[in-house]
């Protein structure tokens, strides 16, 4: 399954699930990355990491290592 770390700036994607059940997974879920949520990739910092996304009306930044835990619906 494709993850959020492998998408292009400008893409609009839908969250399928979050991998794992540790603190990082809980944090991502709490911030609104729940299954079914749509998000847009807004941009990335110098050297391509971290990335900036927009979801449920706000902006969030996360590193690619965290983004790879966010699995997307094809």
């Amino acid at each position: 399954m494709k993850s959020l770390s492998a998408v292009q700036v400008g893409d609009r994607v839908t969250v399928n699930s979050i991998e794992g059940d540790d603190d990082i997974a809980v944090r991502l879920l709490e911030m609104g990355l729940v299954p079914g949520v749509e998000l847009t990739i807004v941009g990335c910092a110098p050297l391509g990491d971290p990335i900036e996304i927009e979801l449920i009306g706000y902006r969030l930044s996360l590193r690619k290592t965290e983004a790879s835990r966010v699995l997307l619906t094809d």
Partner: protein
Amino acid sequence: MSLEQQTQSIAVALIGNPNTGKSTLFNALSGVRQRTGNYPGVTVEKKHGTFRIGDKSIELIDLPGSYSLAPRSPDEMVAVDVLLGRLPAERKPQAVLVILDAGNLERNLYILSQVLELRLPTIVALNMIDVAQDKGVTVDAPLLAQRLGVPVLETRANHGAGVQQLREALAHIAAQSPPEYTSPFPPAFREEVAGLQGKMVASNVSAPRYLVERLLLDTSGYLEKELELGGDNFHQTIEEARARLKESGVPVPAVEAMSRYAWVRETLNGVVQRKPVAPPLSDRIDRVMTHPILGSFFFAILMLTVFTAVFSEYIAGVPMSGIEWLFETIGGLVGDSMAEGPFRSLLVDGVIAGVGGVLVFLPQICILFFFIAILEDCGYMARAAYLMDRLFSNVGLSGKSFIPLLSSFACAIPGVMATRVIENRRDRLTTMMIAPLMSCAARIPVYVVMIAAFVPYYSFAGGLLNSHALTFAGMYLVGIFAAVLVALVLKKTLLRGATPPFVMELPSYKWPSLTTVGLRVFEKGWSFIYRAGTLIFASSVLVWAAAYYPHNDAAVATWTPRLAEVETELAQATEPAQIEELEAEQGDLEHHIAGAYLRDSFLGRAGQWVEPVVRPLGWDWRIGCATIASFPAREVIIGTLGVIYDLGGEEDEASIPLREKLKSATWDGTDRPVYNLPVALSVMVFFALCAQCAATLAVIKRETNSWRWPIFTFVYMTLLAYCGAFIVYRIAAFFTTTPIVSV
């Protein structure tokens, strides 16, 4: 309501997401009647504010900004403990005030759904409605209030709008019944919670329903330890419950976020209207600010502007010369109007020179915090952290370390306190350990005096660059370079661990609130003045006393008889040539006597005792003295050097600037000057890297709750400073072909 209840004060907890204007609302509600402290055992600030409305007094308890009430560490547990009345140090709030960002309701309602489960009378402040409108978001507040079953009030805390209405609503809130509540969780989960609670009651372990629910959800195991559920196989019971839930399609812990966000969507359906607007200004600004190239360029320009303002002769320089002039005038007036003796010496050489030398830096501190407060309040700081993250990840840290380290350029104390925004303990400790390596305002006097006196002035690139500015910048780079090395080493040894997550909100831009910025600057400025008036005042007096006493006449007995003879001869002398010769001898003798008094003083003895240690750095015992004396605070060294060379010099030298005194200082018994470029660089590098600041060590002790880290900081920084100074001294001596002081 009975009369007794009417006179009681009502405790209300304030909670909400970060970046919702929570502190602005807290300040607007409680005004100046605030008290701050720390909750015992954790690094969470305890902030209380009080205000009166009608015949009632409301005590507002400000809880740390948070996205979720799901404690996984002692720090996160504080908010839950306060709300549930489980802290002995805090009264149980009778009501909760939840602040929501109107433009970002979906995510903000997450924590509200958790608060509603606590069954406390609740009131909602719908803040930043103006920012929301700019984003094309309108909120039907009456409908939201109806859906939630709690009062919802619109506020614009930064303009003070809606604050009075909120106060009045708070006055009646405690009398209200808690809101009707239906759990967002699926029935299977609720049954497991009930089952677990039943089992706990049977084993005489009591916990509120909310915590029982959290026990099932907290896969980190923190709560099980916190609630001391070691016995009775509770761990197994919980694991079994989770397994059963997973089988019936209810995954733990994901079920919480899924259920709550489903509840949020349902609650907000029809409440929030989004008009498609042209990309809001905030987004357009953000496109530039977070652009990989434009954003980095803007960031560089911004940092340059901040530092130029802080070190500019025209901005910070003007009030600084004013303060300098003031203290010189006071010193002159006091000196002229008093008879010579220990008391005048104490006032002029000790107190006025010592405290004045430090207060001079107040304008720079205020300017730096003015910029930091603006950048924080308008939402730029999160972008800076975002841009810098990659750089920090190279040394094993995250962009979140940027703000504490930037603050440390003014002063390490607020810098160490700002590390609280870093959730990960190892990252927080590493940042705390390297924060004192950032060149703070207290180092500026050391650099300024040494550079002005001993670094030759060359200007190049058409006057844009000069050797003084470059040396100054070099000292900052020495600190940053050392910080990178130390962070790398710490993250590979003592504080080794997995890279923590970097998941950070980038809040909408907004106009900074003048009140918030003003309060921040005032707070920082005042604490600096307070330090100058207490710690630095006290150490100036102590240093003076240590350098003046015992003032033993026996120590100067070699010269006093001859001085008396010279003075008698001088009174009788008539020939100009003879007078000149005698006067020269008199000056020489007085110099010897003053020097002998100092050498014999307590401070002098200590300095001579450390001289063998500091000789390899090119220092004489006076610099050793000054360094020992500046343990409480680096800036004291300037006052101390002033005191030492004032006492050690002739009386009429008291008025010349310190740098002239340093230039004329010689090694005892020779004409060889103490100071030259290598020695000046050695002193500067030592002070760039050393931990000569008792207040920073004290704040590290407070923040880490242990003596281990402040002691570690002091030891490693002192070693680093010594080695750095030694290397720089040798290299500079080699290149300037200056003879090295024999050891």
